[in-house]
């Protein structure tokens, strides 16, 4: 019986994938699948128009859709029907000072249209230009909000002027063309420009004819990217991972649920792997090229590690714990990846110094897998500490778990050391020194030192099982510092992965791990 239900469940999983692959907007009877596939040149690479639409809407609105309007129809409205687009409430304004600047009533956030902002735009530009002279780490929330809104307005205006020049004045054709070329957000085949009169005039069949003639061939990177965009493999995987975590918890009570855990995990892992492979094909690069892809890959690595080690473990309880926490990390890193994707194109071209597939596929991949292992060990440490609080006999029976954690730390240490040395060699080849005490290098060294401290302190007999687990928790904070923390210092040659928000989250994560370590240090008499 359960076998049949399991097969039915697999069918559901496949069905969801198929549903996502076919999820094309149906507005107005336009062939949006073809429109999405039109290749454009933006951000230094050829990409489907759909990617521009999604990234632009994500940047302006914070989401990949505006109400029930999908990104592609939205972009078409912006580019071809500016009058309508100017009234769309897609700008999200947060800061209260910015509200008063724009004459908005006080509220936590407002969704406003271009038309609403336009009277204040001159003032906004002046302020933004002033604030840009402040060094990035020193900008306060209001300054950031003003600059952000100005960036969003600029992007919007450039998008509006991509296919047509939006001006009342009569310009000589060559001047108009030159001006449009400067303002345009992307370049595209001139045949596509004809959609501008057709779209506002509701001539859908002409729009469709243009799109079908101009769309990228079926077997091309552009088409693959358009399909990857709407399939949202990482998002699907995220949802399934969340569900499996719930199943794992619930299966303590409802045994039959455990039959679905492995198939769902493997399916979601497969989706994530295919997503990574597609990105590799589109970019013609190894899996990790920027902060976004490192987040996806760290999570993937954790789960891969857990799936490889899990079957070798004797205790079923530890197997579930290993799976649960690897899913947990993967879930969190995918959420982090989502937030990083709001900053812009996740397949962006690389800076000259990074333009080497050899080092990206060795140093970067190995380093990132090292993070994966240390994080997995850290989460197992947290599990140990919390279980110990709830069950005072847990400590005695956990030696298998500790042994597993030590092995994972050993793997993490090996990967981090070899990755760090490879990184030094790369640095030697591109900057002329093996080691320059750059923050990112120091971060990697800290991970190596922390791993070495755990292993040697255990060998020296200074710590026992509990000590290993408590120090492993510290590994979480060390990895977070090395991965994100040093980027926020904003110094050094490695500072290309810069981010100024999320500082609060990071500090929260340090504090949480510190607190867990403290809990782990509580003597037995405090336990229940």
């Amino acid at each position, binding site marked *: 019986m359960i076998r049949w239900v399991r097969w039915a469940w697999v069918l559901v999983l496949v069905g969801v994938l198929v549903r996502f692959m076919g999820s094309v907007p149906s507005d107005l009877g336009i062939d949006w699948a073809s429109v999405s596939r039109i290749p454009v040149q933006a951000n230094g690479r050829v990409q489907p128009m759909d990617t521009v639409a999604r990234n632009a809407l994500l940047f302006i609105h914070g989401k990949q859709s505006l109400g029930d309007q999908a990104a592609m129809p939205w972009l078409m409205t912006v580019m071809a029907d500016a009058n309508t687009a100017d009234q769309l409430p897609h700008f999200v304004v947060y800061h209260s000072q910015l509200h008063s600047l724009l004459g908005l009533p006080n509220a936590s956030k407002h969704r406003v249209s271009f038309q609403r902002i336009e009277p204040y735009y001159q003032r906004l530009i002046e302020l933004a230009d002033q604030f840009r002279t402040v060094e990035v780490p020193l900008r306060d929330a209001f300054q950031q909000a003003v600059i952000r809104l100005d960036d969003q307005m600029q992007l919007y205006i450039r998008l509006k002027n991509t296919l047509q020049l939006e001006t009342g004045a009569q310009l000589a054709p060559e001047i108009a063309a030159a001006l449009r070329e400067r303002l345009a957000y992307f370049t595209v085949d001139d045949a596509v420009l004809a959609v501008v009169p057709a779209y506002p005039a509701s001539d859908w069949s002409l729009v469709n004819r243009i799109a079908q003639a101009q769309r990228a061939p079926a077997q091309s990177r552009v088409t693959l990217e358009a399909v990857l965009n709407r399939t949202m493999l990482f998002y699907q995987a995220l949802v399934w991972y969340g569900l499996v975590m719930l199943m794992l918890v619930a299966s303590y009570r409802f045994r039959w649920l455990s039959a679905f855990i492995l198939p769902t995990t493997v399916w979601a892992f497969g989706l994530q792997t295919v997503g990574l492979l597609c990105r590799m094909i589109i970019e013609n690069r190894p899996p990790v090229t920027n902060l976004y892809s490192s987040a996806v890959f760290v999570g993937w690595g954790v789960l891969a590690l857990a799936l490889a080690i899990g079957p070798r473990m004797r205790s079923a309880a530890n197997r579930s714990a290993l799976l649960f926490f690897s899913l947990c990390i993967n879930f969190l890193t995918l959420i982090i990846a989502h937030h990083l994707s709001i900053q812009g194109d996740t397949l962006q071209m690389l800076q000259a*110094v990074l333009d*080497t597939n050899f080092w990206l596929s060795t140093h970067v991949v190995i380093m990132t897998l090292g993070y994966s292992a240390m994080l997995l060990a850290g989460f197992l440490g947290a599990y140990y500490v919390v279980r110990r609080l709830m069950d005072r006999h847990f400590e005695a029976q956990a030696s298998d778990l500790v042994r597993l954690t030590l092995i994972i730390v050993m793997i993490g240490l*090996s990967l981090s050391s070899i990755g760090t*040395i490879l990184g030094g*060699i790369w640095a030697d*080849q591109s900057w002329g020194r093996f080691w320059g005490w750059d923050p990112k290098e120091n971060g990697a060294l800290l991970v190596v030192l*922390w791993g070495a401290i755990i292993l*040697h302190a255990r060998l020296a007999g200074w710590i026992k099982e509990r000590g290993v687990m408590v120090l492993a928790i510290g590994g979480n904070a060390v990895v977070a510092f090395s991965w994100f923390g040093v980027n926020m210092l904003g110094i050094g040659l490695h500072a290309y992965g810069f981010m100024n928000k999320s500082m609060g989250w990071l500090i929260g994560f340090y504090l949480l791990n510190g607190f867990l370590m403290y809990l782990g240090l509580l003597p037995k008499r405090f336990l229940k």
Partner: protein
Amino acid sequence: MMSRIGARLKHAFHALAGLKIAVVGLVLGFVLVLVGTLDQVNLGIYYTVKVYFKSWWVYWHGWPVFPGGMSIGLLLGVNLVFAHIKRFQWSMKKMGIWLIHSSLLVLLIGGAISGFVSQESQMIIREGDTRWYSESVHDTELVVLHTQGDTTRVFQIDMANVQANDSIAMGPLVITVESRLNNAILRLIDDANRWQSAQGAGRYFSVEPRPVDRRPDARNHMALWVRIHTQDGTDLGRFLVSSWLNHPQWVGDIATIALRPTRYYYPYSVTLMEFTHRQHPGTTIPSYFSSDVIVTDGSVRQPFHIYMNHPLRYQGVTYFQASFDDADTVSILQLVKNPVWWSPYFACLVLGVGLVWHMVLMMRRLR
């Protein structure tokens, strides 16, 4: 008596070879690297390295509060060596661990040597120009150029070795440093306020001190007031020298004097033929930098193409594409002279072999 000393030595040896020293060293190293990284926000990389990593002690308000990078490195190095001596067994089982730790030793020793002997400088060349020297980014030198007939002799002294009130004999001149500012700007002064007491460029400028800029790519400009005598004691007057003043100034008509970024000379010359800077289409993200140079060594002229991740190695000096200037017409090459540049490559190889060895053994044991 002798045996007691022997016993103590043996005890010390065992302690130094022990794991506990290793853990202490690792923990100290962790704290040092963490604090040293965070302090880069205030100090910048260059000064952090001086204060934390290339030092025996870290000073705080004049007190040595924490062992510096060199002390900790030495501690870990000694520990590694002694542990090797004490524990080394020629067995297959220990081989992986042994290789892993020897690679770290190679890395530590290589790092220490290159820390002392490696020399970094920059060669800034305009397209079509030729250079036979490079310049330091951080160090300044005082030079006296003494021309007799066809030959010019250069007398130079590194300013790191010069204090205020020092008297230095340089060729035909004796230079006494009256005051020294590590960072200063020069301002032209009008006629009425002209320094009557000064000779040369010092007559035309007032010197304003500036705080030393510790940001990594900042350049500080030193300024010195010096009094110059000839070797036989004739007073030639008071002079202002500064790295702001591009050209050497005449002292009497005996020699010229200048303060400039420390130069390193080479027995060959480098000519920049072309600098290339490409960007990804439609963006300002750089996709490619390169310098086409010709190295002229005696009668041999060799062309080289230097680009990102592909430096030129010539006679023990490595040339890297570092930066550019002046609308892509000036290329800035980073020059590094490091005789042990190969040590990390070797260490990486040994570490790789050791890790694989150990992993294979562990896998066998798990099965």
